[in-house]
């Protein structure tokens, strides 16, 4: 999209980029060991951890993609984000406490470490690392791509640099994230996440209030949408234009699948004191819900303005948020939101850089029974390597990376959620069942998603499920089924004894 350069937007973006760079410089002095680099020295307070969890969970999709999706399919799109009403408590109850306690007793920096300690199986742990690496490349590539597009839009580099505009914008955005992620590791990651989280909440609430005013209130907007030919009553039907299986499938994947998202689970390892888990769900739930207001606000206002004839119908629904912000909101608000979107993208990207580097320098070598001698140094090198690889991959294979990015959440969910969530709460789960469940989740999800959507390799068969059924929901159910039934079918004598620390933590 080419748009006129807005000085407020440019100013906010420059200020924001300078701020996160400064945090990177400050954090570099506080990052002295692998523990500092990967889990911020396990010294982070609960409010910072809560904001870091929230901002890492929400990528730019909530701010830009969500309103566009709502413009396209109506309020049914909200099934992706409304699980935030209960998922913060759900996450803390099901896995949060045990992850934090385990990390207090053992050297645990990653989800693969948890799998290794829980199941005592290098194969299971290695498989978890592979799932993390695949998902990381997809997520990170998509974030870098989005970062490039946003920087290009904000700074108007398209007119100046032509075909080199997008790669230049991607390099600029990537350089800032890589700088603070390399220099300050997770210390920089969580403190930038705190700033980013505050910015996201303020921007989302401010835009929501502005939307209510400009659209004439919720009821006026709803009635305009229902009465319009372009949208009609189905736009405000809870299931909208989606099938029940799709909408409720989204709810299932984005609620239960959260238990397998490494960038969220990882935050529990950093918490300084397990006692402070107490009010974390309240802060995470309220801040996530505040961020979702932007999805609801713009997603409702843009169709209402189009229905009222105050805005032209969008050719590309994905332009709902940028077009509304650039043409309908005061420049200062647009600046705040664009900084908020940059924050959302970068906070997710830095989490994945750290997790991906840990998977490469810790988890994979451990799966082969080896240990990298200087994890701190090689962790930094790996951050740069992953960023370069994901950026080049995202630039060369734009469509492929977008596709991988969209099903990364489902891959994590199906591969990791059952093994982590059931495994930490039921002693009987065996390493074989966990390994089979992870393999099932990964293969079924990647297979179904890729074969149903890919257009790159003509010779591959196309597989499609019943209309509306989500591959991620199928793979997550299949992964739970395999884990539970293989565990039940395993004779009691085949179970190896639990690690004493794991046994102790599961008893609490």
């Amino acid at each position, binding site marked *: 999209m080419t748009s006129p350069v807005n000085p407020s937007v440019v100013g906010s973006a420059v200020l924001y980029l300078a701020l996160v760079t400064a945090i990177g410089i400050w954090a570099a002095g506080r990052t002295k060991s692998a523990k500092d680099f990967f889990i911020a020295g396990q010294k982070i307070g609960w409010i910072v951890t809560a904001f870091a969890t929230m901002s890492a969970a929400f990528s730019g999709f909530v701010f830009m993609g969500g309103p566009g999706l709502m413009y396209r399919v109506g*309020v049914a799109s*909200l099934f992706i984000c*409304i699980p*935030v*009403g*209960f998922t*913060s*408590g*759900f996450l*803390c109850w*099901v896995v949060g*406490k*045990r992850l934090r*306690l385990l990390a*207090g*007793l053992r050297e645990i920096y990653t989800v693969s470490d948890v799998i290794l300690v829980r199941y005592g199986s290098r194969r299971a742990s290695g498989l978890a690392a592979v799932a993390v690496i695949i998902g990381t490349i997809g997520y990170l590539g998509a974030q870098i791509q989005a970062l490039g597009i946003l920087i290009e839009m904000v700074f108007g580099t398209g007119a100046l640099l032509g075909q080199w505009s997008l790669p230049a914008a991607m390099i600029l955005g990537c350089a800032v994230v890589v700088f603070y992620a390399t220099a300050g590791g997770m210390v920089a990651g969580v403190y930038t996440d705190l700033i980013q989280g505050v910015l996201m909440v303020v921007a989302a609430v401010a835009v929501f209030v502005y939307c209510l005013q400009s659209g004439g*209130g*919720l*009821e006026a907007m*709803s009635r305009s949408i*229902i009465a319009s030919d372009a949208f009609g*009553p*189905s736009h*405000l*039907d*809870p*299931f909208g234009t989606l099938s*029940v*299986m799709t909408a*409720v499938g989204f*709810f*299932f994947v984005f*609620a*239960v699948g959260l*238990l397998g998202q490494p960038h969220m689970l990882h935050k529990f390892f950093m918490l300084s004191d*397990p*006692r402070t*888990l*107490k*009010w974390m*769900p*309240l802060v995470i*739930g309220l801040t996530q*819900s505040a961020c*979702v207001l932007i999805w609801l606000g713009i997603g409702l206002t843009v169709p209402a303005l189009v229905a009222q004839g105050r805005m032209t119908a969008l050719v590309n629904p994905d332009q709902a948020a940028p077009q509304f912000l650039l043409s309908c909101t005061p420049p200062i608000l647009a600046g705040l939101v664009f900084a908020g979107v940059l924050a959302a993208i970068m906070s997710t990207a830095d989490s994945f850089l750290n997790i991906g580097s840990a998977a490469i320098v810790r988890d994979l070598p451990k799966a082969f029974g080896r240990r990298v001698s200087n994890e701190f140094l090689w962790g930094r090198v790996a951050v740069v390597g992953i960023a370069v690889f994901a950026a080049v991959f995202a630039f060369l294979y734009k469509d492929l990376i977008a596709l991988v990015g969209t099903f990364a959440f489902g891959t994590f969910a199906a591969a990791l959620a059952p093994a982590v*969530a*059931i495994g930490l*709460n*039921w002693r009987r789960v065996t390493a074989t069942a966990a390994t089979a469940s992870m393999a099932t989740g990964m293969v079924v999800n990647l297979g179904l998603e890729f074969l149903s959507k890919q257009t790159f390799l003509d010779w591959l068969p196309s597989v499609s499920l*019943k209309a509306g059924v989500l591959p991620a*929901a*199928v793979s997550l*159910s*299949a992964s*739970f*089924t395999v884990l*539970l*039934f293989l565990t039940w079918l395993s004779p009691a004598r085949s179970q190896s004894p639990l690690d004493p*620390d794991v046994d102790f933590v599961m008893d*609490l």
Partner: protein
Amino acid sequence: MAQRYALLFLGLASPAMLVCSWFPGFVAELCFVLLVMAFPAALIALAVTRNGKLGPLWVPLVALTLILEGCGVAMLLLRGHVLEGPWFGGFPVGTAVQIYGLWLGPLLLVALAYGWTFSRWELREEDLRRFDARRNRSKGDAEG
């Protein structure tokens, strides 16, 4: 006992959801909605059970299940009735159920229930004492 029921539910619900995915029609959709909405509560029950009991968490867990199940079924029944039903909070009733019920309904219930029961059930003083003692022992072993 609660853990056993939770596992039984999860074990039956997971393949049942796969079966629902293959069949068209209202019954399959209704079953899918009922199973999906009860799934989170079953996982919570599995995690928080102590000595077979849910303790003070049984009230918020039952309330969460009822809210999710009630909203899911209500939305299913209200599908296609946007023009006919009453309005609530600026939306047709089906959308209001989705936004105020399914999203905002559990928000304070779950977060406050977690905070209020935390020291009594989730992580008690006695648990923390045991945890600190074990951690100190592990540190001592590592240093020794």
